[in-house]
Every structure is written in structure tokens, then in C-alpha cells.
């Protein structure tokens, strides 16, 4: 039996740690994680990111910032973004409209699959509804 870890396993562990760290934000965090995949599906990744970005200084900003940071870290970990040029989620928001459609689709599906795990773990780790 091979002990080589699949990308999915790494992703699951990564998402688990993200959700655990985010659990200090409280139960409201869950509703924001659950909202995001739908937002990406209706309005597209670029618009969804810009939406998160536009909330950064509002009260709900702490949730969006946390989710944005996790997404950035994961994409960075997977080497899907050029971390020399794009150094934070805020920069990713602006970079996303400059990349090719192929990359855009790739990142969209990666973000959605990462969020599906983040959502599950947030649901399990954070109590209350």
C-alpha cells in the first residue's frame, strides 16, 4: 500500500485546519462560508471576490477576510497563483480579471472544491446554527 497522499487528502487537512482556526469567529462564520459557493456560481469568481473585498472594512469583513485569506493560502499552496506578484487575497482580487479564461476556470473549480470542504468542517467544528 502506498502512503503517498493524494491532493484531496492534503486539501482536506488544509481545510480542516482553516476551519479550526476560524472557529474563534463564532457561529456566524458558517453562514458566510455557506453563502460563498452560491455567490461564485451566480455571479462568477471575479465578482464574488470583489464582493468579499468590498466588505473588508464592514462588520462582516472579519468573516470574509478570514475566508479570503484561506482561499489565497490554498491557491498559493497549490501553486495556482504567482506568489511573487500576488501576495495577498486583496491582490488576488485584482489579479483575477487579468488571467486567461482557462486559468480562471481552473481556479474557480479549485476554489469551489476547497470551499465544499471548508463548509463541511465549519459545520462540524463550530457549534450552534
Amino acid at each position, binding site marked *: 500500500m502506498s502512503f503517498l497522499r493524494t491532493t484531496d487528502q492534503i486539501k482536506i487537512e488544509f481545510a480542516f485546519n482553516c476551519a479550526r482556526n476560524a472557529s474563534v469567529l463564532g457561529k456566524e462564520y458558517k453562514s458566510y462560508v455557506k*453563502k460563498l459557493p*452560491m*455567490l461564485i456560481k*451566480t*455571479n*462568477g469568481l*471575479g*465578482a*464574488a*471576490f*470583489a*464582493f468579499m473585498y*468590498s466588505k473588508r472594512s464592514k462588520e462582516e469583513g472579519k468573516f470574509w477576510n478570514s475566508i479570503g485569506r484561506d482561499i489565497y493560502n490554498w491557491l498559493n499552496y497549490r501553486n495556482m497563483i504567482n506568489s511573487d506578484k500576488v501576495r495577498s487575497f486583496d491582490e488576488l482580487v*485584482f489579479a*483575477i*480579471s*487579468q*488571467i*486567461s*479564461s482557462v486559468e*480562471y476556470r481552473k481556479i474557480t473549480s479549485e476554489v469551489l472544491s476547497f470551499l465544499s470542504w471548508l463548509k463541511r468542517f465549519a459545520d462540524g467544528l463550530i457549534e450552534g446554527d
Partner: protein
Amino acid sequence: MSDSLVPKETLEKINRNQVSNFALKFHKFARFDGDKFLFFKTDKGKIIFNDVENFNFPSINFNNLCKEISEAAKKLFPTINYVKKLIIDWRLTLGLGSESVYETSINLHPVYGFPYIPGQSIKGVVRSWVILEYFNKDEEKAYQSETFCHLFGCPKESILNKEYQGALVFFDAYPIETPKLKVDVMNPHYQPYYSDKTNTKPPADYYNPNPIFFVTVENTSFQFIIGIKETENNLGKIDNIQGHYFDLGKKFLLEALTQKGVGAKTAVGYGYFK
């Protein structure tokens, strides 16, 4: 940065005003106006932009589309089929709370891009109307009526003692003519009071009003279709009303659409048909 957040290649080939599918224009080409997404903006009473009104849905022939759908429905339910055309009494807003970067949304057909009323939404309204009107708001009581269970279906905990599929079939309601979209506004004046969790802020007049725009459909006719299999069209009775299931369904559909309303904000007059 452009105000549409679509991939660069897309933006090089097409701009917002060239998009002929309203759902794509509204959702995917959402306009990012500096710090938030807007489809409507005014400045001192002058309209800066309005991405919603005057959209005329080019390349869709609503009349033909509705004919096709009613013919398809007639093939499925050859003898028992009912088509009713009704016009919105004032305005209709559907899918207002769906997730969207605008904060408010509207239900649009995923392929054609026009506003429509999904069949399950109509069924829900009719079913809820029957429970409200004939069973005194009591769902449990409704499950004790055989006719109700046959019409709308029921879970195991009902008089039929088994899960049952409803006999009435509700089709999506499409507009018969080019739908007229209208921007509407709700304007809460005491937002700090509503969102205050500490219960210390009074609903006073020194707060700034906070206009929230949303999209409505007005003055547009829709085509409603229900069907039932002939073998399932038995005689039934709800309250004092007796008749074949299909006739009951027709009656309830009309009542619900005219007296209960579809979609959001029915309490303040949206979503009624006449």
C-alpha cells in the same frame, strides 16, 4: 480596472451592453461601482445608469415559446390540461433573497434569461393556500384529508399511511409577452435600530435612510399550466367543495394566485395576479 469582473478575454470580445441574455448581463456582468455592485444608480434625482429597465429581451419570441410549452403539456396530459393567462396586479418580485453580489436578486431562467415562476414555487403557494384557507393553517389536519394527500402528496405520517406523490402537476409559468422590468426601492429609515443586538439604540429620526434597490416585474402576463393524469382524476372533497381533483386544482390555483400571491413581499402587495 474595468467595472465588469469577467476574465480579460471575455471583456475583449464583448461588453455589457452587447449581452442579449438578461441573466448573463445581470449576474455575470454585474457592475462594480467603486466599492459595491449596483444595477441602478442616481445622483441628485438624475439616473446615472440603469442596467435593468428597458431591456427588451431580443431574440426571444415569448408568444411562440408559451405555445410550445402548452403544446408539450398537452402531449403529456392529453385530455386533462389547463392553461390560464393572468396578468400581474401590480408588481412581482421573485427570488429576492437569493444569494447575489447585489444583496437583492431576481429569479431568472438559467437558459433564456427572463424572469419566470418555477413550477415548484406555484405548487408551494397553492398548497400553502389550501392549508391556510381550508385547514385552518394546520398542516397535520391537512394530512388527515385524503383529497389533500392525493392532490399534493404527503409523507408517511398521514391518513394514507404511506408516502404519496401528488397527482397535480404544476408547470413553470413563463411570460407571454416581453416582461417589463422595473427597479423598485425599499428604504429602511432605522437600520441601526433593526441591526442593534444590544437593544440600546432607539428607532429615532436622526439615522440616514438606506435605500436598497431591487428588481420587479410589472404589468406582464404569465401563462400558468397545470395537468393531471386521467386515471388519477377521481372525485374528492375538501371542506365543502366537492369535485374532480382537476377541478379542485384549477379552483385552488386561481384562488392562490389572486388572493395569496407569489414571490416575496406579498404582505405589501407584490406578487398578486388578476
